[in-house]
């Protein structure tokens, strides 16, 4: 279970998160929607421990563990995964090597045996096929020369390989055509189960047609202003954020 209480955070001295309260019970998938600049990415970075995002109050725990006290790599070892809104390019780092290094780092931290190159490739290829991706994706440098859609799919591939217990997907659907969107949704749905908890950040209701969330939250100006069932996403699509923000004010 992910439990966020009164979380406030600043970037460059500017308060961006102004008191977030959010509980995502074990095994549930929640969606966070909200206008540009409302603090969605900031929340995902704070939860994953990016430098420069200063927590000024409140708490965030996962299964009772204080997430905010951990280094980013320790959060990953604890089962957290962030699919980046803007995946980072790593020239000179092969995708397969990158993913194997990550997987083995996480496995080591969990006391599981490491996978050798052959075992890893077998697993990676199986995931690639399930996500309808080309094998050569593994040979390329991480995200270098990838199209926007390929980058997003590469995030989903990493998630499928690392099998996190808690995933945050930050606008993984943005800029995808409908086929790519379905692939991303399948990637998430394949992991769904009692041991998988997820926060899906999106602008558009259309992703939520494919990943049906247990709850939908609306983030505006650093606060969650509304929460509800999947129908809230439809209400948003119809009415827009402005009226909802006005209503909440």
């Amino acid at each position, binding site marked *: 279970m992910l439990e966020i209480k009164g979380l406030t955070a600043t970037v460059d001295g500017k308060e961006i998160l102004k008191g977030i309260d959010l509980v995502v019970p074990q095994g549930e998938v929640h969606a966070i929607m909200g206008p540009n600049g409302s603090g969605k990415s900031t929340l995902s970075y704070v939860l*994953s*421990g*990016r*430098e420069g995002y200063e927590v000024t109050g409140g708490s965030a725990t996962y299964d009772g563990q204080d997430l905010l006290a951990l*280094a*980013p*790599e320790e*959060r*990953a*070892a604890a089962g957290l*995964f*962030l699919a*980046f809104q803007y*995946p*980072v390019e*790593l*020239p*000179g*780092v092969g995708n397969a090597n*990158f993913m194997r*290094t*990550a*997987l083995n*780092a*996480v496995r080591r*931290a969990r006391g599981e045996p490491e996978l050798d190159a052959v075992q890893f490739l077998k697993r990676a290829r199986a995931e690639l096929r399930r996500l309808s991706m080309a094998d050569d994706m593994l040979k390329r440098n991480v995200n270098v020369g990838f199209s926007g859609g390929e980058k997003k799919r590469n995030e989903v591939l*990493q998630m499928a390989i*690392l099998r996190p217990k808690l995933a945050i997907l930050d606008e993984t659907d943005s800029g995808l055509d409908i086929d790519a969107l379905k692939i991303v949704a399948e990637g998430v749905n394949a992991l769904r189960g009692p041991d998988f908890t997820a926060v899906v950040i999106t602008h558009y209701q259309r992703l939520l047609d494919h990943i049906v969330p247990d709850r939908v939250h609306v983030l505006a100006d650093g606060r969650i202003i509304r929460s509800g069932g999947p129908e809230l996403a439809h209400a948003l699509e119809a009415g827009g954020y402005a009226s909802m923000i006005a209503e909440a004010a």
Partner: protein
Amino acid sequence: MNAVAQPSALQVRAQDFLARYEGLKDRLPGDAAVRTAAAAAFARTGLPGPREEAWRYTSLRPLAEIGFREPLGPLADCAALLAGLPAIEGPRLVFVDGRFRADLSAVPSHVTVRTGTPAFGTLARLDEKLVTLNTMLAEDGATIDVAEGIDAGTLLLISLGSGSHSHPVAFHPRHALHLSPGASMTLIEIAMGAGTYLHNPVTSITVDAAATLTHLRIQNESPDAFHLSTVYADVGARGTYDSFALTLGGRLARMEVHAHLHGEKAAAHLNAAQLLGGNQHADFTTVVAHDAPATASRQTVKNVLTGHARGVFQGKIEVARVAQKTDGYQMNQALLLSPDAEIDSKPQLEIYADDVKCSHGATVGDLDPDQLFYLRSRGVAQAEARSILVRAFLSEALDPIVHEEARAAMETAITAWWERQSV
């Protein structure tokens, strides 16, 4: 009263080298006339000093403070150093303290090799002071000849500083390598050692028409050593001198390469990586003379600097009037992993032809925090993430190395270097 100027430390050292020469000259092998001329020149010019443009960033003062002698005494067995050599198959020429050691070597069968006499050749000029010093004091060296059209495979040229003397020693090997038309070879040079010494090799390389030399160097000298090497590479029409030099060792190091592209479509790749920590200083200095049409030169130099290390790259490209359609490219990149590390970069283009393509660039920076965070968010610990990004920074230089064992040896040396740094 007459004020007598105190000689500088560099002058004192130069006098000392001259005195060494006077004591040894009757016993030194090879062309005595060349040596006499070199000694006369060295007596005039001495060691390069800070007022010279080419030595603005690299001071030989630390060297001047040490009294070097000749490596006399019983043959060192070098067991520990030999055990530390990378596992690369093939024939090898091993020099210990600058002297050829037949007992440790495996002479190649398909090329001509002569040792015991320094090969002065015709390329080295007396306007390079360290070359003059080498010419004056060289005791030994390898002269290698590859016949026309022969693919000579791989040859290792290994220099060990034995560290078995009670005093710092200096050695000045003099090598010459000639590839006849259409010949090819991969020369892998490895320099290692223990203790304090000066290794001042000069190598003259002649690549004839349509010949190809791949020259891979691993400079992993002792942390107290001085490595000052000069390479002259003359390349004929459609010939290629393809080199990569990895600098990891030494307290003070300079590699100087003079490439002369004198035949149409001759090419030179002068790539290098300098990985430095502590108080190390290393300098990679190149002069590429484009002297024929459609010649090409490529230089990618990567520096990874930690601690108080200082890296220098000086790259000069000269394009003669005849050298139309020249293509020259030069890039110097530095990763500064500590606030006290420093890089000095001096590109120089002298272009007298009008139809040429020449470019140079430089980048300096720390590791990218976004890339670090991306790796860490995937579970990779900070130290490993940094190591991955340093390796990635070097990949552009390392990945093109075709010789698998040499590349693996470089990877191993880089990993060991990284583990010695506390960053």
